[in-house]
């Protein structure tokens, strides 16, 4: 059984079913301690993957006008302003009135146990030879099941915003393939670039190497060393998020070094893949099914009144 074997007992799609074509499991390590909030990752992702615009708004939430991951935002840089020191206060010293600015580039986690992939009824979502999770857009029929299944709110159905100054729908349609898309979209970990031997666009564009791409095993080791270093330097709140293969989704293929609790960045503190409990849910359904039959039969007891 590989690391990617499903909790429901079905065989792992990677690397088992790929045989000789299986590649090393690739992923991201996003070290938010060196993120400078330049959003080059967001732009590079949009450029390379032809991701359409997702609305032009000013949120007033620090420098973040992207707000969340979605069909049209596959990287999202979060900005958090805090009255907290970057380094934890040392005992005996006067606490300083400090300000820190947390920035973090969020992305699809490419979970080891991916709920989106489990629940997809068409097989559109699949596990690639690199162990990543990708939507096949020629198969997706827009049923939307993966959207609430994802414990991180990564996937969404694509809606293309319109503005008064936009070119006519026919021209937009030519540019984007279709007027209204109707399918779900998310980060592919640049599957096409990986096939060509290149790193994903966001990692390539990141000027500080906050986004690091590579074999997942290597990244986990590197992240462990980085965490030790930051702890040695007394950084306030440094923690790894999603690096543990024993967590509720079997570890992330794209994990993070954060400087505060995950929920401060809009991330769930303890995500689980709900299909892990599906065998139990099917059993409950079977009992309820029996109850329906028994109930109907019971309705015939007791004559004609």
């Amino acid at each position, binding site marked *: 059984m590989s690391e990617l074997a499903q909790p429901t007992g079905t065989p792992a799609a990677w690397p088992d079913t790929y045989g000789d074509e299986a590649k090393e499991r690739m992923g991201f390590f996003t070290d938010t301690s060196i993120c400078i909030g330049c959003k080059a990752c967001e732009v590079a992702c949009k450029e390379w993957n032809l991701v359409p615009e997702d609305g032009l708004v000013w949120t007033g939430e620090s420098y973040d006008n992207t707000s969340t991951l979605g069909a049209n935002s596959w990287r999202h840089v979060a900005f958090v302003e805090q009255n907290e020191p970057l380094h934890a206060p040392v005992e005996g010293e006067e606490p300083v009135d400090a300000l820190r600015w947390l920035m973090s580039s969020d992305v699809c986690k490419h979970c080891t146990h991916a709920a989106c992939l489990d629940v997809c009824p068409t097989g559109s979502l699949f596990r690639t030879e690199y162990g990543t999770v990708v939507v096949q857009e020629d198969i997706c029929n827009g049923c939307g099941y993966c959207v609430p299944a994802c414990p991180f709110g990564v996937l969404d159905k694509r809606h293309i915003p319109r503005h008064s100054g936009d070119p006519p729908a026919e021209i937009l349609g030519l540019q984007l393939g279709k007027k209204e898309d*109707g399918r779900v979209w998310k980060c592919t970990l640049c599957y096409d670039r990986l096939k060509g031997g290149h790193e994903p666009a966001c990692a390539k564009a990141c000027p500080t190497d906050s986004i690091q791409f590579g074999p997942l095993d290597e990244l986990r080791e590197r992240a462990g060393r980085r965490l030790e270093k930051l702890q040695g330097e*007394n950084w*306030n709140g440094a923690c790894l998020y999603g690096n543990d293969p024993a967590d509720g989704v079997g570890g992330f293929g794209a994990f993070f070094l954060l400087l505060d609790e995950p929920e401060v960045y809009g991330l769930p503190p*303890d995500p689980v893949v709900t299909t892990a409990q599906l065998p139990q*849910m099917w059993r409950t359904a079977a009992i309820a099914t029996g109850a329906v039959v028994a109930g109907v039969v019971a309705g*015939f007891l007791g004559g004609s009144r």
Partner: protein
Amino acid sequence: MSVTDVGGEMRSYYGRPVIKEPVWKKEIPWYFFTGGLGGASSVLSLAARVLGHELLAQRSIQIASAADAVSPPLLIADLGRPERFLNMLRVFKVTSPMSVGSWILAYSSAASSVSAFLNTIGRLPRVADLARTASAFSGAPLAVYTATLISDTAIPVWHEARQELPFLFGASAVASAGAAAAIAVPVAEAAPARRLAVGGVLVENVVFKAMERRLGMLGEPYSKAEAGKYKKVAVGCTLGGAALIAGPGRGSRLAAAVGGALVLAGEVAVRFSVFKAGFQSARDPKYTVEPQRARSSGQPAGRSRTRPGSADASV
């Protein structure tokens, strides 16, 4: 100061949701209703046929086939790419309740429509009975699987209710089938249908209450905003309708019909209440974060963190 510290308790990213709201539209709760009505009516029809209630059996299979017939169009209309609906039958995945359900619905609606058609024209009685048995076999799963479908999501108010929702949906389906048959069959022959309508309504209301009680804080969305309004309508209509059916409905066809219509309206409202509660629970990050935080408070799963010097400086 950032919004993340407001309240001093739960922290969030500008109050934004952690998970996405579903993208499903009103066709889906309508389908929960029609699937439940169709599935339970198939079972009712077979039971009636076996126990010698011919008229009830015939009317029930007609109701089942009608409900089964409108179900696929409802689901297809909700797809982002309706022309690709056949992709649902491209694979069979037990890890996807929607995949399992698509196959159940395809099989069940084919069987119930064959049986209803043959019953109505009075031909090939053996084939009609065989098809009726086939559709009854899948009827109860059809009535219940939609609860499993929504339970297998990250929506707290659905996933955490996974023990109760199949029973809620099952009872609601039985009540719907009973109520519809009580309308369609003369009073003298509708006794089993009346009992199903009344019994289903009672069980469903008890399960709903018990579910909310067990969920505690997580169950709040069921009684708030839109979901709460639908629930009030559901409780009023189902209990009122059941009282009419159980009382005057035993003697008067009109009372039975009005009571049946009320129960059916109430069952639609039940599905909408559960549906809307899911959206409301996704929208507020506290329903996602607080239970996870409580679960992981002792030994944080998936994280190895330290916060040297201060346990929780900003809180």
